[in-house]
């Protein structure tokens, strides 16, 4: 089972000729992903790590049957690239690109939702279903096949927690890094809904952070809809209020979105909340 990406995933990498695209096309292959195509306008006919490069996603889809895209295109061209993927009929678009203007994110996400297309990101590390497929930049070595579903707003913190879980000989069904930008294609609730129905997933880890109210909304959702055990960690309990913590998700404003309010909401929904990330595996046992 697993969610969103699995052994049926046929991946096209948009921006495959760049440094990140080239590096991660190989890393994703090593993880087991079927990487079927790359796209770079004007470079049709070339190959990157033996992967054929096309002028457009449309060509890639027509020629290889790609159904999932991973976007490495830098911010100024990212909206175009993501919409090109949707136009070409791609079902899941994972946007790694950071610093995407929020208006572009709104545009991409609204189009995707109206088309039933799953967008993960922007500014996310991607998604991995160990033993099946990985789409994104998550390090291969931290994963272990298992039955814990992980959903996280963070990048490297996700690695930290997944790594801690794997070191304790527990594994993951799917790990989804949804990204911490203000507007994301997939939010906690979207992923929780899928984990709840996924047969492989037995327990769920939710990694949130201060800012926004999506953790509170997730808590509300868990209360009404999720019967599987959920463990959470909220980063930023001790972060100074009002400071911008590196990305846009992490602004404390209007007295909402604090770590306290999130932890309280989650605990009220029956979620065990870890104080520090390394406590997560303890709470899972």
């Amino acid at each position, binding site marked *: 089972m697993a969610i969103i990406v699995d052994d049926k995933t046929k991946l096209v990498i948009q921006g495959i000729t760049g440094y990140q695209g080239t*590096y991660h096309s190989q890393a994703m292959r090593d993880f087991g992903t079927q990487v079927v195509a790359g796209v770079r306008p004007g470079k049709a006919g070339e190959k990157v790590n033996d992967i054929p490069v096309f002028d457009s996603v449309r060509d890639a889809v027509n020629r290889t049957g790609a159904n999932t895209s991973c976007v490495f295109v830098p*911010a*100024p061209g990212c909206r175009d690239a993501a919409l090109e993927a949707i136009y070409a009929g791609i079902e899941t678009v994972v946007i790694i690109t*950071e*610093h*995407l*203007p*929020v*208006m*572009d*994110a*709104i*545009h991409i*996400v*609204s*189009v995707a*939702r109206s088309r039933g297309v799953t967008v993960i990101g922007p500014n996310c*590390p991607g998604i991995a279903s160990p033993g099946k497929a990985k789409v994104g*930049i*998550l*390090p291969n*070595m931290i994963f272990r096949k298992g039955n814990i579903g992980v959903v*996280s707003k*963070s*990048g*490297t*913190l*996700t*690695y*930290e927690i997944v*790594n801690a879980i794997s070191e304790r000989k527990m594994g993951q069904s799917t790990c989804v890094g949804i990204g*911490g930008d*203000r*507007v*994301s294609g997939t939010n906690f609730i979207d992923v929780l809904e899928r984990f709840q129905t996924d047969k492989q997933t037995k327990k769920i880890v939710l990694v949130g*952070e*201060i800012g*926004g109210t*999506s953790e509170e*909304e997730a808590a509300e959702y868990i209360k009404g809809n999720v019967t599987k055990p959920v463990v959470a*960690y909220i*980063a*930023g*309990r*001790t*972060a*100074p209020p009002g400071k*911008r*913590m*590196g*990305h*846009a*998700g*992490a602004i404390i404003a*209007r*007295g909402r979105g604090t770590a306290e309010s999130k932890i309280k909401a989650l605990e009220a929904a029956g979620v065990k909340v870890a*104080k*520090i*990330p*390394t406590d997560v595996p303890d709470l899972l046992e």
Partner: protein
Amino acid sequence: MKLFEYKAKEVMRKHGIPVPDGFVVSKPDEIKSLPGPVMVKAQVLIGGRGKAGGIKPADTVADAKKAASAILGLNIRGYITKQVLLEKRLDVVKELYLSITIDRSRRSLIFMASAAGGMDIESVPEDKILMLPVDPIIGYQPFVGRHVASFLKLEPEQAKRVADICAKLHELVVEEDAELAEINPLVITKDGKVIAGDAKITIDSDALFRHKDYESLPEDLTPLEEKAKKLDIAFVQLDGNIGVIANGAGLTMATLDSINMFGGKAGVFLDLGGTDDPEKVKSAMLLMSEANPKVILLNIFGGITKCDTVAKGVLEAIEAKKIRTPIVARIKGVNEEAGRTMLKNAGMIPAYGLSEAAELASKESLKVV
């Protein structure tokens, strides 16, 4: 990027939103004549300037110079006033609130409006505020402005003007990539005009690549903040004594949380973003040494780069600046063991896990020297 009031009003005028006549000066002597009775307003990127004495009325040039002298240089909640805006005084009949911002949950823009303008919107009860999302697929349509005006219960003529301002404010937000555009108060004057009394605009800094005209705006940064910005490193000054370097916002915050668990306190932190680029790690180490913390805690979770390569960058930085601050270093990823050995040999305190690193750094920071 927040715009000063005068700049925000310039942008609003450009998009056809009525703003009072006025001009900005940085010295009282620059005031030569007035458009009539004015308000002299401190230009600072923080609220509460009224209470801090940053807004004064003036009827004559002499008055205005006096007011400007009093306000220029004023420290308003940590911000030094470098410019004042002199603006025609309005005959206020009513003060409304109107803004557009990002609605994260709905993933759209949202209008906020209230008949209780002029005060902090957070202190207005929720049922007195209209929250009206703009459906991104439908786009802005005239009915949105009509809904806002209808909620505010205005006379037909003012309702039309407010609806028109809504359309223009939305156009401004989209065309300028603003993440916030706020008019508070939106003033209805004695002669029936609707005009922006104050103006706040925040431009999405991620969108500056398509708004070259904003890039040159002055920003109040300390020299270290300036350097960090150039390196694309998030730099935050806190009040503890541990200097934290980590990669990624979440991991940085988790590192702070962990330090806190063990009684430590961060004094400054640098977030490299989601990268483990050795060059950036090196720059961060150099920057951190300038901030002069008691202990440095380095917490890098590797993705692309090998740990020994990252360690090499760290060692080069220490070498270059002769850094003698105790350093707790934790680098996670491929070739971890090799990296750790390198750091240990160079006199650093290596750690395996995040909590171990936090514990070691906290202990070090609590040592009485």
